[in-house]
């Protein structure tokens, strides 16, 4: 499907939904919008597909006194989206928020309000944000290693090859939209890293050269673009993806889990924005013992997060290994950071830990 076709479809869909509302109003009935519920309660972990699938729980927003403002805002936002798509333009989430300032009383007070309305439209139409003309401003992540990214020159439209080995101590920055990119690579695997600190150390010491791999710094919870970028690499070049985060519930279930199976909030697009083949190599609770790592005590929020995950997260519920890891962590009452290996020696992580872990799949977590 060409971009133009997609665009036409999006515009048609927006018009269809709006006409439906218009006709309901003409019939003197309360108009409604129906959209999937965006939360962990409404996803299931599909082992076969390897990501969070949306269930069929929907919410209906009926036009009443308490919903009329959001209702008006949603329609306004759909109008903006239609304009953007028709003119082949894009607006960042922040820009969309500022556009709303022209809507008089229907304007958004804070950006999270407009983000949420945007997510609703996305889910209601079953498309992703970029398709309806909105892009995030957050960076997609940083890449270094054995990879050539093929992008288009913004002026000439010709192919542009970007060699990710040639950024020195810097790195290639994943753009917010990655669908048009293609790759050339001889790397053996992708290593996705939580912190930019660890990424810098590995990059500086040319770990990617030694291990023949692509390093991706996620900088916290991976953005959609970052997830999609890794997914494309994994799909198109059959590369295994290994994930290396801090040893705490946040690293496991906010960062790793979102990368691997997607999020509850944007479950309608998880299919494309996740990396089901990803494997977790560390830092595991067992690593704390095996490598005798210095630790910090778990905080109140960590315990809360663990409880919540065990109770509500379909991914954790599916994997006994993860439940055991969490139990072990709860028993040990400690968490560990990626940088803890520096206690041995600054390069211990790339000289000893990573080679050992990568060669021993039994010590990974699913």
């Amino acid at each position, binding site marked *: 499907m060409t971009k133009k076709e997609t665009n036409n479809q999006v515009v048609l869909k*927006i*018009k269809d939904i*709006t*006409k439906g*509302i*218009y006709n309901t*109003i*003409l019939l*003197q*009935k*309360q108009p409604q919008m129906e959209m999937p519920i965006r939360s962990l309660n409404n996803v299931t972990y599909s082992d076969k597909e390897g990501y969070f699938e949306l269930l069929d729980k929907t919410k209906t927003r009926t*036009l*009443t*006194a*308490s919903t*009329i*403002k959001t*209702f*008006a*805002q949603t*329609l*306004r936002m*759909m*109008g903006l989206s*239609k304009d953007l798509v028709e003119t082949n333009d894009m607006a960042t989430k922040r820009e969309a928020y500022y556009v709303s300032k022209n*809507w*008089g*009383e*229907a304007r958004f007070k804070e950006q999270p309000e407009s983000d949420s309305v945007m997510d609703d439209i996305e889910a209601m139409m079953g498309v992703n944000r970029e398709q309806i003309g909105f892009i995030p401003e957050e960076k997609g992540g940083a890449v270094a290693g054995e990879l050539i990214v093929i992008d288009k020159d913004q002026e000439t439209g010709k192919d542009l090859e970007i060699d990710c080995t040639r950024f020195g101590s810097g790195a290639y920055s994943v753009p917010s939209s990655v669908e048009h990119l293609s790759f050339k690579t001889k790397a053996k695997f992708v290593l996705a890293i939580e912190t930019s600190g660890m990424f810098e150390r590995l990059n500086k010491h040319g770990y990617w050269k030694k291990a023949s791999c692509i390093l991706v710094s996620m900088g916290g919870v991976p953005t959609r673009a970052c997830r999609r970028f890794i997914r494309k690499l994994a799909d198109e070049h059959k590369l295994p993806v290994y994930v290396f985060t801090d040893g705490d519930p946040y690293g496991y279930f906010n960062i790793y889990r979102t990368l691997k199976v997607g999020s509850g909030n944007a479950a309608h697009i998880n299919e494309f924005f996740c990396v089901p083949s990803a494997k977790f190599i560390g830092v595991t609770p067992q690593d704390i013992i095996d490598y005798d790592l210095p630790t910090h005590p778990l905080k109140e929020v960590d315990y809360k997060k663990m409880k919540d995950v065990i109770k509500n997260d379909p991914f954790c519920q599916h994997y006994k290994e993860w439940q055991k890891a969490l139990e072990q962590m709860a028993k040990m009452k400690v968490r560990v950071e990626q940088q803890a290996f520096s206690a041995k020696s600054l390069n211990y992580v790339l000289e000893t830990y990573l080679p050992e872990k990568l060669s021993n799949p039994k010590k990974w977590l699913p």
Partner: protein
Amino acid sequence: MAQKNAEELAKKQREISIAEFFEKNRHLLGFDNPRRALMTAVKEAVDNALDACEEARILPEINVEIIQLSETRFRMIVEDNGPGIIPKQIPKIFAKLLYGSKFHKLSATRGQQGIGISAAVLYGQLTTGKAATVTSKTGKDKKATHIKLKINTQTNEPQILEEGEIEWEEKDHGTKIEIDMDGFYQKGRQSIDEYLKETAIVNPHCTIIYTTPEPNQIIFPRATEELPPEPVEIKPHPYGVELGRLLKMLETTEAKTLQQFLTSEFVRVGPGTAKEICANSSLLPNTKPKKMTRELVENLYKGVQKTKIIAPPTDCISPIGAENLERGLRKEVNAEFYCATTRPPSVYRGNPFIIEAALGFGGDQESDKTIRIMRFANRVPLLYHQGACSITSSIQKTSWRSYGLQQSKSSLPVGPCIIVVHMTSVWVPFTSESKEALADYNEISKEIKLALQECGRKLASFVNKKRRIKDEAKKRNYIEKYIPHVADAIGEIIGLGTIERKKIEDNLTEILEHVRGELEEIKIDNPDYDPELAKIGLEDDSEKDISDEDEEGKKSKPNKNDKQTTLA
């Protein structure tokens, strides 16, 4: 100093007459300052006039006139259309303290002690040296008795200065009292004006024609031709009689035996109960009352307390009625909400009583002030000593916050509200002889609180409703704000013109109206409100405003309804 012996001291010891006592303690009777003295004198005369008319089953028409004689001297004239007083009784009624028909009986009349009007005569005599003039006519073809009177303060006996018969053409029967006294006339709170107005409110069967010193004439016309039921006299209930009274009753009774005494002098005591009392007192039913010693009477007193005796009858008292009370309040205050309640009769110390309460909320009343309280006892307005009154403390002890008024701990609530409480009883327990505050009996304050709570619950549901409507209006406002945005957004997406967009707006307005229902409105709907009446007693307290008010009176005259007229 040289010591004195008992004989020397004895020379100074002598009897004090009740008249002398009150000469020195006139504040006890409500004559403590010139302004209040004038008000109290009017009050006593009007109370007597109303009692007399009602007892004779005559619809009262009372004329009150205050004439300013000099800067500090006033003449008070109160004239009624009552049955009149026979010549022989006039001196004692008007010029002997503690003489009257109401002290020894229990009935729901205004007067109780037989002090009030003679105290006014005494006060006039003390401040001006002048006698009071009484004119009274008892029948159509009779002449009127005309008497000038003073009180002999040493003996508490009337002193007749002049007595004669005159023609009193304009009246078939009635009584007129004129007293000159030192005083001070001022409008505003606690004024004669306010007293007469409140009297008119709770006595809708009487007409009062009031001529102020300015002079202005205010007429409070009667609102009903129906007299309240005649107060029924009852005998005391055993529980309400104290030891001293019991001794006195045994001394004066004509009964031959104790049992006979008990059954004839008390209410709710039959032979059975009488025998039971005797048994509980370890006394024989045939004991001779006159021969009983103090100790035996004390046994009897204790025996009474031990015996279970049914409560006194309550049909001897008649309330104003919730409906009448509310109607009166409607005249006085322009509010959004009114309610009133009459409690079932209850008993304190053997005396039956009824509490009534009414409440007016919102409307023209100020919301950041302490609520206004109107107190009445046996249809008499109580204007002074609000803080010492059981009604006030009962209001304070009621929790008004849950009923939608502001209230800091155990103080009077704040809000746009007026509360009216009326107590009627065969014996109203006043805290002093000036009869301005109710004593704090548990049984009474409990009943007051119950009446207030009843009104409070109705108030709460009104306040909640008002809040709901306000919220609803807010929501509708909110809806109206966003309807055009919905219409515009739809219009822009599918390309609609102004007419279609207008159609969306109209339909949405209708749809939401349909879903939410009609918006209720709270309006002041009170045809009974009488702004001229409400103004009386609320005037500025400063005297120099009187001329201005006069002007105002003239200006507003054409708007006045025929209920009430002010004549310049």
